[in-house]
């Protein structure tokens, strides 16, 4: 973990400082920080010599580049047609009950955020979800409870 200013410098050194290097840099910041703070966006703009509004405009276009503070684990439930038909609402309900948050919220301890997302491309194994970049498919309420318990235990072990 680098302080964000240093991270941005490193990313710019690694990818380059041209406009076309903007997305990889934004992605690199999100990978570590889980979101793009106003501060990060201004720093990126400074590093690449771009107007901050351009960085903001680009960052906010992409659904995986969060610009609100997110939890350590971002849960994204696919809500597109097949997952919706195959019971994604039950999955969401299960997670909401377990984590005591609603869709769009983050747990007070900052561990989990719950979001919905568009088609993940696992329609034949619906419903599907992502936790950070990990894919989980053929979900049932039982299965989802098991998966989340795994994450919660992992988190506790780390602490």
């Amino acid at each position, binding site marked *: 973990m680098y302080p964000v200013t240093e991270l941005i410098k490193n990313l710019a050194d690694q990818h380059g400082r041209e406009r076309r290097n903007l997305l990889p840099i934004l992605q690199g910041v999100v990978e570590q920080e889980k979101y793009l703070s106003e501060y990060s966006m201004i720093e990126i703009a400074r590093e690449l010599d771009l107007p901050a509004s351009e960085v903001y405009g680009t960052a906010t276009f992409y*659904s995986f580049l969060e610009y609100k503070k997110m939890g350590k684990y971002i849960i994204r439930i696919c809500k597109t047609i097949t997952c919706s038909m195959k019971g994604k609402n039950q999955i969401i309900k299960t997670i909401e009950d377990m984590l005591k948050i609603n869709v769009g919220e983050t747990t007070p301890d900052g561990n989990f955020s719950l979001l919905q997302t568009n088609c993940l491309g696992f329609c*034949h194994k619906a419903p599907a979800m992502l936790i950070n970049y990990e894919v989980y498919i053929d979900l049932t309420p039982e299965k989802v409870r098991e998966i989340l318990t795994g994450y919660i235990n992992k988190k506790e072990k780390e602490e």
Partner: protein
Amino acid sequence: MSTPIYQLKRVDFIFKDEKDWKEILKNSINRPAHELINELISSELKGRGGAGFPTGLKWKLAAEVDDPIKYVICNADEGEPGTFKDREILSKVPLKVLTSMAVCGHVIGSKEGYIYLRGEYFFLQPELNKSIGEFKDYCNEINFDFTIKIFMGSGAYICGEETALFESMEGKRGEPRNKPPFPSTFGYLGKPTVINNVETLAHCYTIFEYGSKRFYDLGVQYSRGSKLFSVSGDTPKPGIYELELGMSLVDFVDEFGDGDTKAVQVGGASGFLVPRKGFRETTIGFQGKLTGISLPTGGSMMLFNSSRSMYNVLDNYLEFFREESCGQCTPCRVGCQQLLNGIKAVKRGEKNAQYLNKLMRLTETMQYTAKCGLGQSVANSFSAIVENFREEMIY
């Protein structure tokens, strides 16, 4: 249900092993460019992302432009609801895709290739990079100068549109450009670019391996070759199937339906919804002069049975489009919002049933005035659902 006139023909080209890739690469780059282009043209391979532009012609156009810098891009921004075949190709036979990209580089005179991989498929990266490394080693060994890199997307459906994809790679919002100019003259960074779907490149490999005739002999007129279909929804056997083009929808439903299929969505949310009464007269392939009703698809085939409310289906599509519209042109940005608000208002009884006709006219306007395929194609499923399942929209 019926006596099939045309049996579904399973084909096994795409996922056939790729062990001969070195030989195919070496042989192909030793052939003159025009010969490879002619091979592709005579195979009649058309783009497998859904739009169906002839691949050989695409390569030819880019080859004819005189520019020292050109790009080859593999479009792996597979985001159409109901499509999941490209991921399977990239995880099972990545070297086929890389080989075809390099052959394309040889044909058009490009030394740089990119795979634009959707953010949702981030997890594919480590394995894919391994294959790219292996590929690079062989290119060095035979002194062939072509580099492939992955460019990650970040969750935007519209970036599957080729010019939006270029914008995204250039570090901007993924907003489609006006066409012309087309990518073959003005693509990534304003340079001549060939951009092909993952599956298209995998088919190119088949053609380089076996020759164009083996490919051409499959399928029907205007729709040659095989195609991967991503089958999902109310079906006992969801999954990925390689089938010949030109099958009739009724045979498809016989094979994949659950006996109670009410409608099939061909080509994802932006594609075409066919109600049961249309199964018999519809075939799957590209439209030609003599084909009757022939529907193209990027491979997405979603089946709905009679337990599904088509209102919910349309509501889900419209919410998808409203969120994924890039917002730069008004017909699409406002149109998608108004369509969604409109059907909700009719359902709640706040607007009368006639209002649906008004909304249909709005989709027509969008078809004519929206800047890219997203806004233009909303009309397809909207009109099919509203016309065929009107009562479900109202009650």
